[in-house]
């Protein structure tokens, strides 16, 4: 451990309180260089508060936090020089054009005008926005604005990029294009820390993740390990016209009952469905699917991720 490079992010007992409200309740996490690490959880889980502390714009209340081996309370400027931040809310500069947004942002990082312009053109092509370079920001689509925000976070060629809910509000096509750009960054060895409340996003992108709920870490690991550890391979989703039979949980499977459907956790959904028919249980609809992180979250907290 000591011979390897320092952690990209290391938090021990990290706590954030606003008055009496505890937003982050003493979490431990360690992100390795080059890793894509996600904070997954519902709204209010403490993801964004954690991101703000890591981006050095929110002082920690308690605990320890180092970013790129540096102390955010004393070396914020040095950390930010090597980091990129994609905030949850778009804060692109509406008074500037697409290209100017990148150029001036590069100036904030101390690049010369010539370097800033060159970098802006590279990033416009990375974000597939070259033909919109001289356009105003406002009329861009949600997906384009996000891509521009991500491009902007890369002007300083950062070692670490923080992305707070990068795809919230985007249509599936825009999300996939964005994921593909994030893969490219990952391949270049950039450490990515992202928050999301989409379990498919966390599964797709993360090497490792933590599931957060009410300011604490519920569990952590790789997506596949978490699924293997907490749930079965498959899930059988059942719908009943008059609600599920009362003895559904008496047959040896773990059952989660949601308002509109019941989930039966079974390694082989087909077998479970056949067995239910033998037991004279006849749902009005059924679906067999692979288990996901959503099921892990449900198993650990008894609640769904996106309410």
């Amino acid at each position, binding site marked *: 451990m000591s011979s390897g490079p320092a952690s990209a992010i290391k938090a021990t007992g990290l706590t954030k309180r*606003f008055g009496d409200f505890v937003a982050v309740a003493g979490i431990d996490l360690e992100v390795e260089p080059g890793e894509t690490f996600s904070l997954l959880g519902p709204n209010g889980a403490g993801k964004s508060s954690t991101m703000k502390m890591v981006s050095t714009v929110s002082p920690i209340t308690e605990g320890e936090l180092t970013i790129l081996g540096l102390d955010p309370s004393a070396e914020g400027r040095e950390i930010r020089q090597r980091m990129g931040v994609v*905030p949850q809310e778009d804060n692109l500069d509406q008074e*500037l054009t697409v290209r100017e947004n990148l150029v*001036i942002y590069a100036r*904030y*990082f*101390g690049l010369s005008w010539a370097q800033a312009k060159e970098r802006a053109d590279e990033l416009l092509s990375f974000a597939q926005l070259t033909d919109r370079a001289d356009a105003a920001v406002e009329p861009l689509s949600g997906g384009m604005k996000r891509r521009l925000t991500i491009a902007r976070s890369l002007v300083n060629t950062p070692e670490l990029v923080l992305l707070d809910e990068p795809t919230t509000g985007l249509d599936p096509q825009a999300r996939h294009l964005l994921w593909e750009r994030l893969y490219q960054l990952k391949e270049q060895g950039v450490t990515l820390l992202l928050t999301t409340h989409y379990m498919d996003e966390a599964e797709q992108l993360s090497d490792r993740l933590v599931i957060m709920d009410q300011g604490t870490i519920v569990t952590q690991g790789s997506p596949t390990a978490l699924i293997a550890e907490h749930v079965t391979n498959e899930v059988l989703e059942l719908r009943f016209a008059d609600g599920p039979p009362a003895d559904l949980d008496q047959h040896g499977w773990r059952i989660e009952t949601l308002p509109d459907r019941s989930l039966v956790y079974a390694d082989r959904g087909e077998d479970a469905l056949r067995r239910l028919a033998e037991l004279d249980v006849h749902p009005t609809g059924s679906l067999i699917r692979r288990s996901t992180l959503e099921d892990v979250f449900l198993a650990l907290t008894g609640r769904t991720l996106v309410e």
Partner: protein
Amino acid sequence: MTAAMALLGPARHVVERNLMSYRRLWLIFASGFVEPVFYLFGLGIGLGELVGEVEVNGIPVEYAAFVAPGLIASSAMNGAIFDATFNFYFKLKYAKTFDAMLVTPLALPDVVKGEIIWSTVRGSIYAASFLAISAALGLMTSWWALLTVPAAMLVGLAFSAVGTALSSSFRSWHDFDYIQLALQPMFLASTTFFPLSVFPDWAQPLVQATPLYHGVSLCRNLAFGTISINDVGHVIYLLGVMAIGMAITQRRLGRLLLG
């Protein structure tokens, strides 16, 4: 210019951002210069026909020449206040421009400094243009008058800092009405159009308490080359207002943006 910018450190990038955003808005920028010119012609020259001569430090001067330095200081104030209030508030609350800056190597003091300097630049450009017009009309009689530009910068710094301090404490656009409510009487009363001796004894300390009074006095003394030790007091007063305004702005923004 480049050397002066380098002195500002990272705050210069905040100034650059504002210059960039105004490149397409030069007409709006230029419009701010027109108002004091109207006052000069309307009141200074028009009314001056009726008023005749006024005394400055014992020297009789034309009324228009009396008013012109006051308008240099007011131009600096108006230019500075406009950017430090409406534009600053928009960037703070709606555009989230400062949030975007604060995740870069820029720190809060850079942002505050950069914004205040930018508003000052705007006010100073108006003041300098106004000085040029006044000089062309033969209203400036001393070479000391060139120093009204740095004096106007001081006025700009003081009002920018007060403007950002107020804007960062405001809750909604309605609060801006108070600024207008304070600025109009100050503009008229700060010896821009009448000397201090016109005011009754009880009102004189009120006039002298306004930052614009100190700016106008300083510019007027420079315009006529009648500077004295009192002018050091005006400079200190304006610098003091700037320092207090900056400190309040920094504190308020720290609470709003770095929670």
